[in-house]
């Protein structure tokens, strides 16, 4: 299937998933386009649209938690950043995604203590 078409399909399916979770696609359309295209390539190669910004290990249990949108499996961490790791999704109230930073899971855990 043609890449652009598949990108649009992913966008439609993922919108349905992220909406009830309080997220939207980033207003940074350039990043969104880039990431969706990567996901289509990853899906062609590996069978699933895995997160383009996180590493797979080959263990199904680990890797399946990184199929996009992976928000449900990293909810508290992402909520704290108001974005997913890649920045494909942001909280609905975010207008300027450039103000958001990646915080490692470790720093996030430490900040909660």
């Amino acid at each position, binding site marked *: 299937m043609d890449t652009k078409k598949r990108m649009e399909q992913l966008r439609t*399916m993922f919108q349905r998933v992220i909406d*009830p*979770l309080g997220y939207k696609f980033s207003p940074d359309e350039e990043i969104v386009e880039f990431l969706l295209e990567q996901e289509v390539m990853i899906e062609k190669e590996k069978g*699933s649209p895995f997160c383009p910004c996180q590493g797979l290990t080959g263990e*199904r249990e680990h890797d*399946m938690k990184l*199929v996009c949108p992976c928000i*449900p*499996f990293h*909810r508290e961490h992402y909520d704290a950043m108001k974005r997913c790791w890649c920045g494909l999704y942001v909280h609905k109230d975010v207008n300027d995604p450039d103000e958001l930073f990646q915080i490692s899971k470790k720093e996030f855990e430490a900040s909660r203590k």
Partner: protein
Amino acid sequence: MAPWIFTIAEKELNDGEKKLVILENNKLLLLRQKGTFYAMSNKSPHMDCPLSKGTFKEYVVECPCHDWHFDIRNGEFIDAKEIKAPIYETKVEDGNIYVNIE
């Protein structure tokens, strides 16, 4: 009046089993657990994979594509309950299973 639609006979579905039924272009998954019948959309709310090809234990069906788990009683995705597979009411009459597809 609710549109109750006949699906299959009660005896065609054993306890702990599931079956795909097609009703007016609508694919439904019928499940039977501890004597009760459940019906839900056959499409995973994630990427539309057919839940009928997944596994089913207790009250949880696992999607074959990315292992998302859904509670057959309310359609909820176990890891984020805000995400739901549509579910439908069922009833048994004269040994036949009916589903309310609204």
